[in-house]
């Protein structure tokens, strides 16, 4: 695997810079980051050999690069990211990190084991030069010193590097690594006194940093969470986990016996819709709006349900919370409450009981509204964390660990991921662009707003569709910020596609065959765009990726309220179908999602970088590995 990655890294332009650098050419001109160039000479003077090794010998693992991005974004939104440095390869700026920060690099130390003392020296000198702390405790360090983004990234890189090494390197190397880490930790402690003072001043950034997604290494755990277990052991478990996690078939609602069973357990008493579309028998379709008052009255008399979960469920049901990220965050926060209020019943173990509890909550949430893929992944994460809680932990410790895990998931996988996506996507917006977006994707909205802040001149075409008309909300927000917009409905998309230069879309999920599962209509827009040769960019956080595959929008979907179709909001003159809603010959189909084939997608922008749809399975695989390691 290492060897396979190397050539890639070499192909990368930034890596070439590293090459120049190691041949001791001053490359400050190439460097976007002043600090980086500043730190260079130090590094090269101290451990030239180490430097020459680093770019080639230590290929950056995929998920690490994401961390780079995370940190980068976290450190400062202002960090000048040269657009050229972003493109398809996720690994793109990894090398520049590794190059500039090489002196203090723990991972290199471990890697070039024979000369392990050398990096140590480099590290120390580096620390001295910068009067900052040492990589090992990079999290705190960054916030403490308030270092410019470039450097902080680099330091985080170092940490990141250590992890893949652990998995792949020999025992001796691993030992070396551990030693180096220990040394680093010690160094960090030495400077630790400074930390609390400043970190309080920059709480937000600390938080953000604490939310490193792929930081399985023990260093990280020391700092952020008291997460247990050496990473090697976890690496061994990965294979088993993956088998376990193979997607089980979804509930099919045309399977009588299972539906009956599910109903018996159900908290929400749904009445089935009468006029159902034959094609979608396998999906649940209920009468909308009937069960909400009933459930609200039950709020104070529910036995098994936690109120936080109940509240979230009702919000799903009423549609108050919608959108993949919002729903996922709401659910996770409810789970945090659950964990906080949890006490293990006697004669039960925390792991098992809590898993069962979460499962029952989840099935309640499913009754309220079918899970989104993002929520599915988050639930999987939570359950995984519960299962991995070491028996040795006391209940309070376990609860604290879980809560912080969930917090971390929200921060890194959702909030930080969005920031990183914005960073990437903004580089694709140029002056004079006409950008088309459909519906109201949060990630795309952030991209547009950020691009506007950067004073880019562009115009936005907001395409909308019935019945949700989410585009109007987006339109309202964009206009408030002073972005020039054109609004139209989805039927007119081929009319306006002539002037569009890029299409930005959101996604509910990206499936491993490259299919983008998103708000219904996305496929239409992408299809028309590709027919007009307009690039289609999909913004999607990596936690929404799923290993499931799907070819059409029929087999798995969600049905909305059919009555929303017959009634046209705000247009009383459209009442042709008023008396007909109970006619047996007439059905209304309110699909919520559709599947966009990967051939319409030019690029998926994710927190791992910008990838073509064909790379999705790779990310899914890597992500899962990392997932079980977190």
């Amino acid at each position, binding site marked *: 695997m290492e060897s396979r990655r190397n050539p890639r890294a070499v192909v990368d332009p930034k890596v070439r810079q590293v090459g120049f650098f190691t041949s001791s050419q001053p490359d400050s001109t190439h460097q976007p980051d002043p600090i980086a160039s500043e730190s260079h000479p130090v590094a090269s003077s101290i451990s030239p050999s180490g430097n020459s090794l680093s770019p080639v010998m230590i290929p950056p693992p995929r998920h690490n690069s994401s961390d780079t991005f995370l940190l980068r974004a976290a450190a400062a939104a202002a960090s000048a990211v040269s657009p050229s440095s972003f493109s398809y390869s996720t690994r793109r700026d990894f090398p520049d990190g590794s190059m500039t920060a090489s002196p203090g690099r723990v991972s290199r130390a471990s890697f070039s084991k024979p000369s392990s003392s050398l990096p140590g020296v480099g590290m120390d000198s580096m620390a001295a030069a910068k009067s900052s702390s040492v990589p090992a405790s990079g999290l705190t360090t960054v916030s403490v010193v308030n270092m410019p983004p470039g450097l902080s990234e680099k330091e985080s890189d170092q940490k990141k590097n250590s992890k893949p090494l652990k998995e792949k390197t020999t025992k001796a190397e691993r030992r070396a690594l551990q030693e180096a880490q220990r040394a680093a930790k010690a160094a960090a402690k030495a400077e630790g006194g400074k930390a609390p003072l400043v970190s309080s001043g920059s709480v937000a950034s600390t938080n953000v940093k604490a939310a490193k997604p792929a930081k399985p290494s023990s260093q990280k755990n020391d700092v952020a969470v008291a997460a247990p277990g050496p990473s090697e052991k976890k690496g061994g478990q990965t294979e088993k986990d993956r088998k376990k996690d193979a997607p089980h078939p979804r509930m099919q609602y045309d399977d009588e016996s299972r539906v009956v069973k599910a109903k018996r357990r159900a908290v929400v008493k749904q009445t089935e819709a009468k006029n159902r579309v034959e094609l979608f028998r396998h999906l649940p379709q209920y009468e909308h709006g009937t069960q909400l008052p009933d459930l609200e009255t039950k709020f104070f008399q529910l036995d098994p349900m936690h109120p936080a979960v109940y509240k979230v469920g009702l919000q799903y049901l009423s549609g108050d919370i919608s959108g993949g990220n919002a729903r996922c965050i709401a659910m996770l926060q409810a789970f945090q409450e659950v964990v906080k209020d949890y006490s293990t019943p006697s004669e039960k173990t925390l792991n098992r009981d809590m898993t069962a509890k979460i499962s029952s909550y989840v099935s309640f949430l499913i009754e309220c509204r079918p899970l989104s893929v993002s929520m599915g992944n988050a639930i999987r994460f939570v359950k995984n964390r519960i299962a991995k809680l070491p028996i040795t932990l006391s209940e309070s410790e376990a609860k604290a660990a879980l809560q912080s895990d969930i917090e971390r998931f929200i921060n890194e996988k959702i909030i930080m991921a969005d920031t990183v996506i914005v960073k990437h996507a903004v580089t694709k917006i140029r002056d004079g662009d006409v950008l088309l977006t459909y519906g109201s994707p949060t990630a795309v909205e952030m991209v547009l707003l950020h691009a506007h802040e950067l004073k880019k001149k562009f115009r936005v075409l907001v395409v909308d569709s019935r019945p949700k008309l989410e585009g109007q909300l987006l339109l309202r927000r964009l206009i408030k910020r002073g972005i020039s917009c054109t609004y139209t*409905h*989805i039927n007119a998309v081929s*009319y306006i596609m002539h002037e569009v230069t890029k299409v930005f879309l959101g996604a509910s999920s990206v499936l491993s065959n490259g299919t983008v599962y998103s708000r219904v209509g996305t496929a239409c827009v992408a299809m028309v765009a590709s027919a007009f040769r307009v690039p289609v960019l999909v913004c999607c956080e990596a936690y929404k990726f799923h290993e499931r595959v799907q070819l059409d929008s029929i087999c798995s979907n969600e049905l909305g309220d059919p009555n929303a*179709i017959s009634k046209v909001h705000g247009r009383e003159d459209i009442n042709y179908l008023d008396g007909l809603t109970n006619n047996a010959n*007439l059905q209304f189909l309110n699909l919520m999602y559709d599947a966009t084939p990967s051939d319409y997608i030019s690029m998926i922008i994710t927190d791992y970088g910008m990838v073509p749809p064909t790379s999705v399975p790779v990310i899914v695989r890597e992500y899962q590995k990392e997932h079980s390691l977190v």
Partner: protein
Amino acid sequence: IYTKEFFLERLSYWAFVSAAQTLRPIKPPASHYLVFLFNSVSLSPEYSLSTSSPHRSPPSHSHRCRTCNRWCLSLLTSSGNVRLRDLKLQRDAPWSFLAVGAQLVAANPVELAVGNVVRRVLHIIREEDLSLATAAVAGLDLLDASDDDEDVNGKGIGYPGMSAAVVAAAARSTLRPPSLQTLLEGTPESATVPYTSSSGADSESKTADKSSITRKLKHDVIEGVNQLIHEIAGCHEQIAEQAIEHIHQNEVILTLGSSRTVLEFLCAAKEKKRSFRVFVAEGAPRYQGHLLAKELVARGLQTTVITDSAVFAMISRVNMVIIGAHAVMANGGVIGPVGVNMAALAAKKHAVPFVVLAGSHKLCPLYPHNPEVLLNELRSPSELLDFGEFSDCLDFGTGSGSPLLQVVNPTFDYVPPSLVSLFITDTGGHNPSYMYRLIADYYSADDLVM
């Protein structure tokens, strides 16, 4: 075979034309027809009369009429037919009908069917006149003086003041189905021969049977127009008759917008005991789909209303897309309700047949250029955005420069011929590539530009 007589004929014709040119200024192409028919002396007063006629249809008329069919019928019955009769009395039928037609077309250029019907009527007049001329000439014993050059000349245009033999030749060539050659080559001779004229001598020779010819022509033209009215009124049935050949049991059909032709088509299949399911895209922001769904349900068809955005999602389960056209262009492209291009692209992607129903009056002899823009109509933003909610953003009066918010609400969509699988017209099914050929049957080449 170039006989002596032929050359004589030619010479006399040339002499006549040159004489005519000295007498009269050059007229637009359509007028020479008139000149041939009637005495030149009476032309100018009548022309002015006809243009100031009280029967001229008001431009707003076109906006009132909703669907193309009704439009055409009303054109023919109210303005067209009456008009025609009046004009016939004034003895300058085609010229003034052309003027009226041009006005009608100008009233709403997007309503292509109007222009089509005007052209059809012009075509009828030309045809009838030709057949009359042939009949008149038939009595005279003349040698067969036609050759290829004259064929090319023909094309339904009576030559002003030409001798009977030439007219006969021209008539013959038009009565023959037009060959590809004639279509493609145009009229080489017409470039050299100015279509003008009248000559004292000629008109004098014709004065005798003039009035009888005029009366006969008038009668025939009205007959022809009535036939056209009948044809347009009955095109639904004609098209619906073919439904049974295209819709089988258990079919799933997607349609879009509200078209009476589609409604009749589906119902015809239903009456023949075929049971199938219809998906109707609702067609925001006009929601014509709701209207269609209502009528389909009333006739007992299994109907499912879907949102426009779900077209792509559902197309994989659809066997056929059937839509009614607003206009069919000469290249086989279709102008239809907005959203149709999306459905056509989706159908292409999933290899679903995309069938367009269109009466032959929808067939427009023009080739589209940038049809999305030039043959489109933008409707009010209020259909998309509630002015109450967005009034602050839509205020064009305040602030400097252009407002931040613009709303686009087009009415039509253009589907390129490559996406169309089949046209079903009242004359049967046709490929998009065949449309140009039908045009030659229905229209005279001279009327294409009005």
